[in-house]
């Protein structure tokens, strides 16, 4: 099982001919992911890495290859349009890696997606990895920019806003011999497609996932909402970590959404809500893997 994607999921990449998109598309191919199509307007008919067909539109790519997931590597000015194109083509899942999309664009995209069957992950996120069973987790589904080799197939679900902090957690888990069912980076922007809570619900329902790590950071109230839900409904042990306790109020800490404003979105409030929900909150980022072990008892 796993959530969202597995080793059989067919993915396409919008922006596959850009340097960033191309590099990570190649890494996904190397990981053994079923990357079946690329989309770059005006480059239809060409091939990526001599094997992956490139199409002018997402609609063509989906019709020809049966891809059900699109990854967005398109630059910020064109990213909202690219997401909407993928939604219109009827893909089940859009994973937007692009950092720096204007908030108003995302506001409109989210409003336009209401009533469609597509789920959006991101933007400004590292993507999704469902590790494979091969050496260094080869053979899994790697969507986005995470380093594949740090993963290991297993039973821990990981959800996080941040990229490197996710890698840090995954690395600790793998080092402790704990594999992952699926690792999802939901992104550091103020308006994103999928929340901590959405992913927690999926992990809760997923038979393969036996424990969950939820990593958050300052800004907004998404972690509090997920914690409140988990307190009532989550059947599985949860560990967590919140970054940004020392961030000065009113300053954006790198991520567009990482800001304490008007007294809202503090690390303290999130940690309190998580502890109140019985979540084992790691004292520091070196302690995330160990915190999960404690949570699992």
């Amino acid at each position, binding site marked *: 099982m796993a959530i969202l994607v597995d080793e059989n999921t067919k993915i396409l990449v919008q922006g596959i001919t850009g340097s960033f998109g191309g590099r990570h598309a190649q890494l996904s191919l190397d990981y053994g992911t079923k990357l079946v199509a690329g989309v770059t307007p005006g480059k239809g008919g060409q091939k990526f890495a001599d094997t992956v067909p490139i199409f002018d539109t997402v609609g063509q790519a989906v019709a020809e290859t049966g891809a059900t997931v699109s990854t967005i590597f398109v630059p910020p000015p064109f990213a909202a349009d690219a997401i909407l194109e993928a939604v219109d083509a009827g893909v089940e899942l859009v994973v937007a890696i692009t950092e720096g999309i204007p908030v108003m664009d995302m506001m409109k995209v989210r409003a336009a997606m209401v009533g469609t069957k597509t789920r959006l992950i991101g933007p400004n996120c590292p993507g999704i990895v469902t590790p494979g069973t091969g050496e260094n987790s080869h053979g899994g589904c790697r969507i986005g920019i995470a*380093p594949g080799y740090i993963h290991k197939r297993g039973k821990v679900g990981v959800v996080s806003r941040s990229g490197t902090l996710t890698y840090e957690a995954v690395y600790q888990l793998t080092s402790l011999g704990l594999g992952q069912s699926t690792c999802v980076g939901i992104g550091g922007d103020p308006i994103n497609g999928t929340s901590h809570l959405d992913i927690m619900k999926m992990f809760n329902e997923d038979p393969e996932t036996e424990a969950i790590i939820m990593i958050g950071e300052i800004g907004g109230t998404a972690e509090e909402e997920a914690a409140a839900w988990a307190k009532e409904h989550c059947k599985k042990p949860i560990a967590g970590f919140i970054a940004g306790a*020392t961030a000065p109020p009113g300053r954006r800490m790198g991520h567009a959404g990482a800001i304490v404003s008007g007294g809202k979105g503090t690390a303290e409030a999130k940690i309190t809500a998580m502890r109140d929900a019985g979540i084992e909150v790691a004292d520091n980022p*070196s302690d995330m893997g160990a915190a999960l072990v404690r949570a699992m008892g």
Partner: protein
Amino acid sequence: MNIHEYQAKELFEKFGVATPKGKVADTAEEARAAAAELGDEIVVKAQVHAGGRGKGTFKNGFQGGVHVVKNADEAADVASKMLGQTLVTHQTGEEGKLVSKVMVADAVDIEKEYYLAILMDRESRSPVIVASTEGGVNIEEVAEHTPEKIHNEVIHPLLGLQPYEIRNLSAKLGFSGDTAKQFGGLLKSLYNLFISCDCSMVEVNPLVTTPDGRVMALDAKFDFDDNALYRHPEIAALHDPTEEDPREVEAAKFDLNYIGLDGNIACLVNGAGLAMATMDIIKQSGGEPANFLDVGGGATQEQVRNAFKIILSDPNVKGILVNIFGGIMDCDVIAKGIVAACGEVDLNIPLVVRLEGNNVAAGKATLASSDVNLIAADTLADAAQKAVAAIAV
């Protein structure tokens, strides 16, 4: 990104948001000319981003960054005492801010003050209009003590501001007749400005009614979405780098995300989440972080070199902690960047390095074989403890 009051006024004029007549002046003579076109009560305001201007003091002894004067000569006199001088307010710190422009505007008779703001709300993923009959004061206090006096209207992202929403707000603020009509026009223009310029917030405090029946925006605070500045060169041009920490301005040139803090342990990290977590663990280990610095997921040797120069330009820095989790990024690239940087700057403070991830063995070997004097650490916790211990010696 923030802008000056006079720039906000110019935006209001461009979008038809009613605001008192006025002009910006660079010199006392310009202030005189601007005042000559105005009425017999004129306000002269020093243009700095910091709040608390009215109660501030100039380093030349002149009291107050906001003055009401009666004529052009007085306006010129006040302007001459502000321009080229440094204003210290409770928000500027002791060093104060150099005033290079003043705004000269009609002082308006106020009947009543209101509060009006539009902001991008992450929970509803929509613009939200916030209005209150309690203007001219700290709105957060109003929200805390008398939340019933705060009125919100959530605007549909695709439909935009609807006439009924304007009527709702107008009624809640107690406007009727011509006042309601003027308020409606102002709100429509303000919403148009908010959307057209990709604002993340525009706050009018106070919005005022005057004894002669006008509704106008007296003061405004803007915040723009930095991610959208590429499509608003006219807004980006309003950026005043002298209002920012020079180290942050310098870092931005190299695509580095740097925020200066008050501590003495500098950190250099890849990824915003990990950078925040690194600051947290320094504090938890008994130290104080000197900065937030995210070199990004794909940092180059050149960026690492420049990052070192920037963190070392902070005189408070007594030690450096480098924390890199090389996912895709090659740890050896970072290691070479560190060696190159240390070769250029005369590093005489402790440097703690924690490298993990892709090609870490080569990275550690590069560091070990160089003549850079550093303290190696295995985990982030270990690195933070070593950094705190190193500066305590």
